[in-house]
């Protein structure tokens, strides 16, 4: 058994609020093996996004330890920090907010490649950009389009390509599909899954949709008010929750089959 890619130990995030302080993350620990997907479940204010930002060193007021591939992330200095920034990245919920509206998709990717010195010439950058677009399921001719000409799902694909093109191995996806329509959400979730399987990407998936977690995550942690209240294999936790809060989340999640069963009976053909 190889060492885990990510080890988080007693991580704490504290914000200043007025004269006092607020503890957003209150001592979270976990390990994540290479090529696995950890689901972080929680509602707003649970500290899940603060946790993500603290891991990627995007947050001040952090205490505790984060080890990535054996390195102490909080102690990294250039150029090791830049290497870490390439290997560990974040994908956000709102795909349009994280793309420059004035750059064509291909130029945006090529720029990232050039900044990180991964392509020597413009031509090489453009060629690499096109091939990354194909990796995420977009035809190479999308390189010539602006973000506003793309649908939400296509933009999310571009964001993934941008993270992958500089060599991301570990991705934190913060509600990556909650702004997308149902039919497109399924396409993107399938893409995330295949990136995990084919390219060995390690994921931390943040969200509130338990059914999405069931499909994507190997393990889950459930957070409430900055602390982990339940953890385990996704299949176990979601089928047999122990903590009252996890049970409440499960009961509250809208579910077509369960709702119809409660209101009248009869089997569903799509079941």
């Amino acid at each position, binding site marked *: 058994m190889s060492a885990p890619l990510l080890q988080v130990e007693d991580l704490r995030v504290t914000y200043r609020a007025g004269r006092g302080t607020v503890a957003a993350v209150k001592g979270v620990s976990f390990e994540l093996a290479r090529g696995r997907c950890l689901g972080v479940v929680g*509602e*707003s204010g649970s500290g899940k996004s603060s946790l993500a930002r603290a891991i990627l060193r995007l947050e001040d007021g952090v205490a505790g330890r984060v080890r990535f591939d054996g390195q102490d992330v909080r102690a990294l200095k250039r150029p090791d920090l830049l290497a870490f920034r390439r290997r560990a990245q974040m994908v956000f919920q709102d795909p349009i907010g994280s793309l420059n509206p004035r750059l064509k998709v291909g130029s945006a990717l090529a720029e990232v490649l050039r900044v990180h010195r991964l392509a020597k010439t413009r031509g090489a950058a453009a060629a690499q950009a096109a091939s990354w677009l194909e990796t995420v399921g977009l035809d190479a001719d999308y390189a010539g389009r602006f973000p506003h000409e793309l*649908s939400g*799902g296509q933009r999310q694909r571009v964001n993934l390509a941008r993270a992958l093109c500089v060599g991301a191995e570990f991705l934190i996806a913060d509600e990556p599909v909650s702004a997308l*329509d*149902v*039919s*497109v*959400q*399924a*396409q993107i*979730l*399938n893409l995330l*899954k295949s990136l995990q399987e084919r390219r060995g990407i390690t994921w931390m998936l943040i969200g*509130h*949709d*338990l*059914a*999405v977690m*069931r*499909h994507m995550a190997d393990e889950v942690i459930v957070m409430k008010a900055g602390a982990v209240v339940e953890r385990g294999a996704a*299949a176990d936790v*979601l*089928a047999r929750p122990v903590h009252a809060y996890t049970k*409440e*989340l*499960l*009961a*509250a*999640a*809208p*579910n*077509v*089959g369960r*709702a*119809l069963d409660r*209101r*009248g009976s*009869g*089997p*569903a*053909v*799509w079941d």
Partner: protein
Amino acid sequence: MKPTDLNGRVNGEADAVLTAAGLGVGFFAEDGRRLEVVGDVDLVLRAGRTTALVGESGCGKSITAAALGGLLPRGMALDRGEIRWADGAARGPGRGLTYVFQDPGECLDPVFTIGNQIRETLPPEERGRARERMEELLRTVGFEEPARVLASYPHQLSGGMQQRAMLAMALAGRPRVLVADEPTTALDVTVQAKILRLLADLQRAERLAVLLIAHNLGVVAEIADEVHVMYAGRIVESGPVDMLRQPRHPYVQGLLKALPRLDGSGRLEGIEGSVPPLGRRPAGCRFHPRCPLAREVCREKAPEMRACGEERAVACWACGEGGWA
């Protein structure tokens, strides 16, 4: 005694509060050309019933809702079909029909107390006993300490409490129809469940006709009585909520299969492609480029809504008589 089915659903036009027939909304470009945003929408909203309009973004559900109350954005006009109130009266928005929207934080004015904002929505004849009426409204939406809420500013309330306050405001004018446009989409799941329960209670207790706009089929299955699924500006399938068990239209089937499930894992069956934007809607059946069942006729001619079983209708060449599904 009105005829009802096993679920206590009222048949026919009985209890109708508002009927919309053949509604069409056009978008007018600079050169005056009309693009159809939604078309051929038939709806019957009934007292004490929740009717849901479901679909993905760009399908026209919010535009249909906005058209009912005269809230269409600039450049669009309701220029086809008609809206009839069952009592024959004509009503402007705000009285007969009120709205609750997705983001209560954006609808509330941050510099006024909740009390100030509800007071403004009270009909003139009730302003004399405003305080009493406002506390009554807040109790109706589940607040146990109405006096404290009345004195609060919006930022002092949580998202769920803000949405309750919006509901209180919507009820102030004693509407017959409440349009709830994605009322729980911005809320956490545990809060969402409470607001949905409240909506269902209000609809029953106040005999409201609720039009629920939602993209989440789970939410719809929780509280809707009737469902209309829209695709690219048209209703493609209608029926009692039970129809979600056995939808006929390939789009509706695809939507349900695309949902991640708590007892499932592995790959999801999505629908290829995405909803076509306005101006790029294909000829024939608008779903045909994404439809696994499409044939020649689907590319050439748009299917109309046809009855298929009790109170159900579907617009699909492959379904029903002469179909191949």
